């Protein structure tokens, strides 16, 4: 199939090697483990494989078939047609990491532009070439802060408004470091109002405070006072963002963030059942040597022509080995390209427009749902495109009912916040028409009556 060898070529090659059969090339493998009989399904032709995959894909009901009000860290946005046309360029997707810059200027310049766009969007000065996703980028912020204080500051404060899965990944990543305190997100009766509680936790031993903007409940907080408090205590302040929201909202660089992380999925990357997505990581120039992952820098060639290279590679595991602070090697190159193409296509006006569409539609949906007897919208502070609805019945039951009418309901917050059982997190994007919103309202109403 993908092997071009003919029988005669094979025998010529064996002759050149000086062996009489392919088996002789495997004599160094202990005989007792050599050639296991693998019990695998018989090989399919491309035509058969295509049919089987098609059948499996069709067993799913997706956002194509359903009106989607589910977000919670992965969002249904419009992806302009040109994005995938660029991603399908063989020169981009079948290249490796740009280790040989003379034959990788396409990838390198695209990453340089990605870094520039991420800095512009977040209001920061340095961006790396990506992390695996928003969760691992958040965890790497923890590791960067740990090393920034040479392990001497051991308190890490996580807002309960940070995505629950990001907090879980943060804890897993930090579990190799002894005697750390990861606090701030303990179960609480009022998980949506946490600013004062976080402030009270900040002390001289605090390495990092992590908040989310807009937070997991969709709320937009003024984090400037918190940032100031963190800085007074000498700690670092990290903000998890949604890049679409930054089309409308003040960037964290303007209110004291030292590190900005987030998931770039909303920027032209399909939902794809959870991945591959894109981990955004930006920081201030003073921390450039502490940043994990690859960096592309501008330079010139022997003739003085502008070009790009991977730079500060001495920080990375290839050279530093066990002294490197991160092990990341392969990252999300092609997904960073997707975000770059997306932002180039929608541009300054378009991103603002998408953000505003999300905002207006979400607010309209929230107003309409708040009018239904039995439901209550908890968001009192400004919010972006997600909000919390207290429901008259368990969320799973409501969602099962909505599904019968072609609606993918919101996220069940009770899974992560014990005091928010029967609370649904609803996300609305530019993809939701007014008609879909009215339908959602109608069935929520009907369900409450049943």
């Amino acid at each position: 199939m993908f092997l071009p060898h003919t029988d005669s070529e094979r025998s010529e090659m064996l002759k050149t090697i000086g062996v009489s059969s392919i088996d002789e090339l495997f004599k160094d493998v202990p005989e007792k483990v050599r050639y296991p009989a693998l019990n695998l399904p018989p090989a399919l032709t491309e035509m058969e494989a295509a049919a089987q995959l098609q059948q499996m894909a069709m067993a799913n009901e997706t956002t194509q078939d359903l009106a989607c009000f589910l977000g919670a860290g992965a969002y249904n946005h419009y992806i302009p047609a040109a994005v995938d046309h660029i991603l399908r360029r063989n020169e981009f997707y079948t290249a490796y990491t740009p280790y040989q810059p003379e034959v990788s200027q396409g990838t390198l310049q695209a990453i340089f532009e990605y870094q520039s766009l991420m800095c512009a969007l977040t209001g920061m000065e340095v961006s790396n070439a990506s992390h695996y996703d928003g969760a691992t980028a958040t965890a790497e912020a923890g590791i960067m802060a740990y090393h920034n204080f040479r392990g001497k500051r051991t308190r890490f404060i996580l807002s309960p408004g940070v995505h629950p899965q990001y907090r879980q990944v943060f804890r897993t990543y930090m579990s190799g470091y002894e005697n750390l305190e990861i606090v701030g997100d303990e179960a609480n009766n009022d998980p949506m109002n946490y600013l004062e509680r976080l402030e009270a936790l900040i002390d001289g031993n605090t390495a990092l405070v992590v908040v989310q903007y807009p937070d997991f409940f969709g709320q937009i907080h003024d984090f400037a006072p918190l940032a100031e408090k963190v800085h007074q205590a000498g700690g670092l302040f990290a903000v998890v963002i949604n890049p679409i929201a930054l089309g409308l909202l003040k960037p964290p660089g303007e209110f004291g963030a030292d590190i900005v992380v987030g998931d770039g999925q909303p920027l032209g990357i399909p939902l794809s059942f959870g991945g591959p997505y894109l981990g955004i990581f930006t920081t201030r120039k003073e921390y450039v040597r502490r940043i994990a992952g690859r960096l592309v820098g501008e330079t010139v060639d022997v003739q003085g022509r502008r070009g790009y290279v991977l730079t500060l590679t001495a920080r990375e595991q290839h050279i530093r080995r066990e002294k490197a602070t991160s092990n990341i090697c392969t990252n999300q190159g092609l997904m960073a390209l997707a975000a770059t193409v997306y932002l180039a296509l929608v541009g300054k006006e378009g991103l603002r427009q998408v953000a505003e569409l999300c905002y207006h539609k979400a607010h309209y949906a929230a107003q309409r749902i708040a009018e239904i007897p039995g439901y209550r919208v908890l968001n009192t502070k400004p919010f972006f495109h997600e909000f919390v609805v207290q429901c008259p019945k368990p969320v799973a039951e409501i969602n099962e009912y909505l599904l019968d009418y072609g609606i993918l309901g919101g996220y069940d917050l009770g899974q992560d916040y014990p005091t928010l059982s029967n609370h649904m997190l609803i996300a609305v994007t530019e993809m939701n028409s007014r008609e879909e919103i009215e339908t959602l309202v109608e069935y929520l109403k009907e369900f409450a009556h049943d």
Partner: protein
Amino acid sequence: MTEPTLFELSSPGRRGVRFPEPDVPKSALPEGFVRKDLPLPELAEVDVVRHFVRLSQKNYAVDYGLYPLGSCTMKYNPKINEDAARLPGFALAHPLQPIDTVQGSLALMYELQELLKEITGMGAVSLQPAAGAHGELTGVLIIRAYHQSRGDTKRTKILIPDSAHGTNPASSAMSGYEVVQLPSDKRGNVDLEALKAACDETVAGLMLTNPNTLGLFEENVLEVTRVVHEAGGLVYGDGANLNALLGIARPGDMGFDILHLNLHKTFSTPHGGGGPGSGPVAVTETLAEFLPGPIVTILEEGSEEVPPLYGFKMPNRSIGRVKAFHGHFGMMVRAYTYILMHGAEGLRKVAEHAVLNANYLLARLRHVYHIPYDRICKHEFVAEGIWDDAPGVHALDIAKRLIDYDFHPPTNYFPLIVREALMIEPTETESKQTLDKFADALIKIAEEAHTQPELLKSAPHHTPVGRLDEVKAAKELVLCCWFPEKESQAA
């Protein structure tokens, strides 16, 4: 030609993709939170498309020619994989949908777990890790959790051969372990005596790459894993490059306890110019309870008429999540498609031809390039890119000169134990003709190194840019063409 950046191409007022006006009443924007300026470029769709097409043409790629980067397994990426991953049923599914709406995705993940178990001879698999290094971190944290669960807290070291990939020591250090480097012996195997001497009750485990990064099969593998087990340690397998072992030998049968696989190498998912990858972790049955989760499982057995109901479970003593959602599902679809199309026999052929190709190149080159560990290799081999009688020529020069011959260079300067390393991995998808042209080019370059070294030193000659000033890049650190200061000064 220098291609302007997106920011340089920008023209105020130009628009690319437009969106409809809101079909709902507008709400007041949040006061005090609205950003003043959004400094993004302004371009038309045609500007954007041409820009990226022009950039793409500055790249070398597998779909253009031979890309023999050692340790990277740059095999051809079947096109059906790309179409399969983009099927709307897969690409448009939200990760948090109710499980009964995503049985297709879950079935695929479950089956992939089962296939990988069979191929590797391991007991359980988590598909969550995003890449090889991520799998390593996961695996070392499992080693830690295992010892801790037994109250065995004195194990503080991980042993790593000096030929290992840099991610191995970095992953161990990130997991709180001290790294002890093991020397290689003359045949390129782990030095058994050194291993035995290092194995005591403070050893948590060994990270072993087999075939190792010299492309050599660890001839004493059964003895190595036995020694580590006897000392109470676990053996971690860096299976980033499993291409030579498919259907040939299973890590599970050789005594490995934990193994990561790079779907973006062995299982043909494309490298994307640096990712995304996928780095599933496989473990023995004993260690299954420590895997990161959730993991796809069968919740209700099926029958002849009804398919099983798939869902998620969290392993009992899981190290926790290592990633949001379920891992790189899009890459899983590609790898699954690849395995389906090969079957057992096809996978073994992949390994056989990967090894045939590497040995063929080795046979053609060993008279011209010094091979420090010269024996039958597996998927790759390492040559020295230097000659005593051609002073001043380095591996880097050979690499750059290869570009003039229209080939992508091999990996340079890794593994660290070979001086001026040229690490060559042709993969099974290259034809004899291509390999011959490549060998001819390398032989010619060896001659040039002795007769016209300046040709090598000044290479490459026909690329969009010549050799780049890396010192300047690191010193001036221009990492972004947009600066907040500039913007605020202008305002």
